[in-house]
């Protein structure tokens, strides 16, 4: 998505120079390359499905052969070749014609097609043609986001629960009148023909999470840093991968996040006119999550703990994606993109003019955070702390801007009630065995939801969470609405009615949706998840 040719060349050149310099300062060229060859051979042997397998295999075989013969003074050139090789793979491509097609024509075309499954909705709204606009709600600090682009470079950091996220984010940015942001997308997404086409042409750069070579990771981070330094806004999913548990991320990956600080320090060092980098948290909130079944199964399975990349989920089946979207529209279900307040790379809030503020709202000269002997400079140990603090502030924003819908409230209330009725069972056993009592009288559930809604409203007043429009009614409305949404999409609904009782068709899905309320100390039950939200607490396993 680097759109200016001169920038593209500048980034390529600087990427090779900078990464080579960094890695050669830490070790000899032969050490660096031997490590790369080792990791890449291992990956190529295991990753049989990769379309670039043959190309990669021959590249690394040839490089290994030349390395064996090259005298020491020629080896740094081979490092530069390896960096270039990785750089070419990572680099994005942007086709303005495809962008125009996607942003202008697709929403309404898709809307009509998707609404074909619900002619009554189409008729009700005629002559207005239903579109994706009806499905995606934008809220929060959108004006600040729009304004900050003139004052510096923006890194948008959303929560991540579905592969639809990058599409929704891209669409949201277009609706806000913003140009496309650069973003890194998993290489596996490029293998999907339809999505891959758009990914390629809308400028996503590739992130291959199977590549463990430290040199690759360095190239990736430096590429992102350089795009920021060249003034291109970026989008990262700082959780690193889709949240398997369904909960809001409470621990972030610091690698890509750190590129913001590096870019800021480099901007200061070369006295850039517009050095500022802004980090803007955002939440993507779904009443239903396309890949919920796969994600929660992965979370719960022992295998899941080591499966970082899922290539065979619902997103890989276009028919399922289509069915999911059409059901969202037919239900008036919402996807809410909520933009949070912007931060600087140190985690301080910034005002609409892009000025950093201290806790009392006073302006701060943030350049002084970067000083070493009175000048801006990088200091890896110090910067790690700054990045870590920024990550904490982002997580806080995720929790504050988490938009809760009826599906989450219903799931939480039902799950809590089932835990009450099966106190001898830990969560894992409860969802696997369903317990002795797996249905709840609707009256009891309403009572529980009333109490939960009161707690949530209190939290919302304190600015610690957001309630979506589907939670504004009575407990009965929440139950009816939540059940209606649940029964439309998943193969077995998370919650379903049995006469005057409510039970769970799929307790693992119930866990997934209730997890969206983890981390708020609601009710009297202990949390289900560990504090990083990446596994069940040991006593619940």
């Amino acid at each position, binding site marked *: 998505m680097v759109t200016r040719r001169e920038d593209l060349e500048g980034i390529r050149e600087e990427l090779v120079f900078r990464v080579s310099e960094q890695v050669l300062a830490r070790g000899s060229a032969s050490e660096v390359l031997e490590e790369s060859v080792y990791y890449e051979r291992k990956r190529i042997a295991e990753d049989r499905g990769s379309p670039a397998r043959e190309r990669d295999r021959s590249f690394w075989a040839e490089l290994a052969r030349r390395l064996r013969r090259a005298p020491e003074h020629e080896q740094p050139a081979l490092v530069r070749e390896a960096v270039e090789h990785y750089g070419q793979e990572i680099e994005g491509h942007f086709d303005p014609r495809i962008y125009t097609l996607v942003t202008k024509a697709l929403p309404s075309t898709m809307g009509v097609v998707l609404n074909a499954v619900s002619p009554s909705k189409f008729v009700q709204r005629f002559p207005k043609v239903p579109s994706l606009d009806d499905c995606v709600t934008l809220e929060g600090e959108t004006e600040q986001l729009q304004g900050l682009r003139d004052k510096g470079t923006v890194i948008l950091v959303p929560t991540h629960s579905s592969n639809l996220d990058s599409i929704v984010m891209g669409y949201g940015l277009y609706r806000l009148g913003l140009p496309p942001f650069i973003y890194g997308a998993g290489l596996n997404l490029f293998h999907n023909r339809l999505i891959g086409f758009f990914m390629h042409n809308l400028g996503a750069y590739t992130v291959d999470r199977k590549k463990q070579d430290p040199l690759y990771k360095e190239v990736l981070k430096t590429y992102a840093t350089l795009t920021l330094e060249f003034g291109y806004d970026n989008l990262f999913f700082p959780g690193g991968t889709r949240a398997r548990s369904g909960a809001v991320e409470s621990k972030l990956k610091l690698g890509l996040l750190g590129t913001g600080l590096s870019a800021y320090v480099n901007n200061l060092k070369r006295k850039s006119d517009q050095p500022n980098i802004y980090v803007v948290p955002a939440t993507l909130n779904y009443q239903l999550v396309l890949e919920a079944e796969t994600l929660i199964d992965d979370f719960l399975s022992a295998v899941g703990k080591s499966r970082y990349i899922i290539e065979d989920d619902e997103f890989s089946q276009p028919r399922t994606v289509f069915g999911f979207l059409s059901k969202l529209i037919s239900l008036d279900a919402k996807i809410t993109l909520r933009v949070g307040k912007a931060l600087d790379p*140190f985690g*301080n809030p910034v005002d609409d003019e892009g000025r950093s503020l*201290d*806790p*009392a709202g*006073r302006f*701060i*000269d*943030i*350049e*002084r*955070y*970067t*000083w070493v002997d009175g000048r801006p400079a990088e*200091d890896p*140990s*110090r910067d790690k*702390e*700054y990045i870590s*603090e920024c990550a904490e502030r982002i997580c806080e924003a995720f929790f504050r801007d988490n938009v809760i819908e009826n599906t989450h409230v219903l799931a939480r209330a039902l799950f809590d009630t089932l835990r009450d009725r099966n106190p001898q069972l830990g969560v894992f056993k409860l969802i696997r065995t369903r317990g002795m009592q797996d249905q709840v009288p609707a009256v009891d559930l309403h009572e529980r939801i009333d109490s939960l809604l009161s707690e949530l409203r209190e939290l919302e007043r304190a600015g610690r969470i957001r309630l979506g429009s589907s939670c504004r009614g009575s407990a009965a409305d929440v139950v009816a609405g939540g059940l209606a949404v649940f029964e439309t999409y998943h193969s077995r609904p998370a919650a379903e009615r049995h006469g005057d009782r409510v039970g769970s068709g799929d307790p693992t899905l119930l866990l997934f949706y209730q997890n969206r309320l983890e981390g708020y*100390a609601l009710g009297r039950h*202990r949390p289900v998840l560990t504090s990083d939200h990446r596994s069940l607490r040991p006593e619940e396993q």
Partner: protein
Amino acid sequence: MKARVCLLGQGDIAHAMARMLVNVELVCSPEDEPQGPTVRRSSTWEEALDGSRVVVLAANADRLAELAERYGPHALGDHVVVTAARGMRAGFELPHETIRRYTCARKIGVFGGPLHAQEVAAEHHATVVLASRFREAARVVDTLVPEERVTVEHTTDLVGVGVAGAYGHVTSVLTGMGQALSWTPTAVGLLVAHGMVEARNLGVAAGGEPATYQGIVGWGELIPRTQGRSNRHGELGAALVQGGERPAGQLEVLTTLRESMRFGQTHDIATPVADALHRVVDSQEEAASALGALLRSPLDPRH
């Protein structure tokens, strides 16, 4: 040229810090009285702070917020800010969090361990721990103290050091009470051990590291307290037993007891020490009875 250090605050702690920091140019703000002959008063805040790489907030936990609030408008991002404050504020807020609440400073260091103002002021040897997440803070502080008199160890565990520091006061009260009750050194030692375990349980639940309590900050600080040092909190302990007048001024330990009990309740951690002392302070139970029950309760190192 000597590095400049800005020393903010007054009283015993400021005086002790002035004695501990050598080979530096010490200045204070225009609002502070110079603590000792080596401290020069600046005419403006800018003069005091702009050339200072290190700022010392010399106050106890109750006064720390006020000091940080005064410093806040003048704070700069490259300052290293250190404090020896012990105790906590409402919400289980530890000293480093108080500094963060009122200032833009990030490179914060908190002294812990057996650092006693009177002993430092008398130039006795001291071994202390500086907790900071920033290596720069550790490096800078090392250059400021006389190594022949002060040994500084380093940790990144601000929470562990903060909670241990706050519980240092609690164990001082326990020691004062035990001695006023004429209990044996063994019994007094056991009381302190209970305090230590409780500090550890709370500290770990708050995010501190268990290992912190096994070094200078834990046993290293608490063992000397069994020797019955005379201080405000020890005097409070004696007054609670003998019914005499409580020491004047604010006592950080009262806030520590209240906040520890609250924190314990919300995190499902037993706080028998804080509970017992709170009952005595609140005149709900006689000291001998409350401490007797405490000694009979199991030591519960949960984590």
